């Protein structure tokens, strides 16, 4: 299995959630985070000087998926999260070796 970690704009989260839902992907975990991207955050002009706001609130969505679904789900997330402007976020994928349902103790494939 694979873990998708998508760090997106908080205001796009509802769209991502809905897109997944429409494709019958329900399981997900969300965390409030703050992030800085390669653009070094947002630069505000300020009376001659400037202020850099380098940590922007983001929403981290974690979805653990079967290997075969990975690409489809990535596409869903990217489409739902994208605005085309700087700050849209990043997605990281990493391997998961085991997934267990606590209620039953069952391993999932």
């Amino acid at each position, binding site marked *: 299995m694979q873990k998708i970690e998508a760090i997106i704009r908080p*205001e*796009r989260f*509802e*769209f991502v959630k809905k897109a997944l839902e429409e494709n019958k992907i329900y399981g997900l975990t969300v965390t409030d985070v703050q992030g800085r991207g390669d653009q070094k955050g*947002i*630069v*505000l*002009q300020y009376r001659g000087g400037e*202020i850099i*706001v380098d940590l*922007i*609130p983001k929403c981290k969505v974690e979805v653990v998926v079967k290997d075969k679904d990975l690409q489809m789900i990535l596409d869903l997330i990217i489409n739902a999260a994208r605005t085309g402007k700087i*700050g849209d976020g990043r997605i990281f994928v990493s391997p998961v070796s085991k997934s267990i349902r606590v209620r039953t103790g069952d391993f999932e494939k």
Partner: protein
Amino acid sequence: MAIDTGTTAWLLIATALVMLMTPGVGFFYGGLVRKKNFISMIALSFIAFALVSIQWVFIGYSLVFSGDTGGFIGNLSNLGLEGVGMEAGPYSPAIPGLLYMAFQMVFATVTMAIITSGLAERVKLSSFIVFAALWTTLVYDPLAHWVWGGGWAQQMGALDFAGGTVVHISSGFGALAIALVIGARSGYGKYMMEPHNIPMTLLGAALLWFGWFGFNAGSALAANGLAANAFVVTNTAAAAGALAWLFASWYHGKPSSLGMVSGGIAGLVAITPACGYVTPLASIVIGVTAGLICYGAMLFRMRKNLDESCDAWAIHGVGGLWGALATGIFAAAAVNGASGLLEGNVHQFVVNAICALAALIYAFGVTYILAWLVNKFMGLRVSEDEEYVGLDISQHGERINA
């Protein structure tokens, strides 16, 4: 007439109570916006308070209460509180002139605070300061003169006990005008902008409700039966408004606590002009109707996709309009000598309607022009990036870290 200690005691504390309404508005609105604009929203109220406090002492009080220029505005003879002293004044036989001035001052400040609804989460601080100075001078002061300072509305006999027209219609329709000029928040209607901290809104509502006793019962300018009547009808109208909105929204979905306190404020707004003229039972009718009408106005605003999101228009504007009409309808001679429609006095109703409408048009129109001018010369609005990171950081360099 000599200064009366009891009346003075009541007006001192009533003034303090009304003062507390300004941060009350700040917390009420602050809970409704997104977390990144919470500080900004409260700060706007404080700034409104400080700014108008100074303006009032220098020129506001004089413009409203000294003499009369064509029924429209006062004159400059009380500039810098010249002639306003510790002895009783012309408007206040039983209390010091300075105290009457202070009591009127806090009305002007809270009105300015209410208007910030239309600017929430996107206004540039410097532009707000300029706008506020203009608005209080060119919109509030004339209106207050019309109704309380011997202006044309007062001459015509309009009834506005505690400022439904002056405070609520002006700020509610003012907020609407400025919201139209500044435009919706970026992303409005595209994604949810949920209130981030309802308990703070409830705190603000509690402070408002509490302060409103000073606002309405203080407007009797006496500690007597009329003040008691104003006190009682204030509370019953608010309670009735709260329950009405609660049940109406329950019918459509969940009965939110925000709906409940919005209904309470709607009731408070609507009873404001009426509180010295109507009976407790009438106040319940006024309150229930206010809750329902303002709830409807809010739904209407939302359907129209109008981003006046702390609902100063729906609650203060529409509620204030209803209050002005309701005063003309329910005024009972037994309370304070004035009769309304229900006692057969069509004239009173018509006068109240005319004055409310005139105020509405004046407030909306002039606010629109002022906002448009400030926007043109300074820009009312922050940049897109500043809006995105939030006004707390971009305007104040502060943030909530809890």
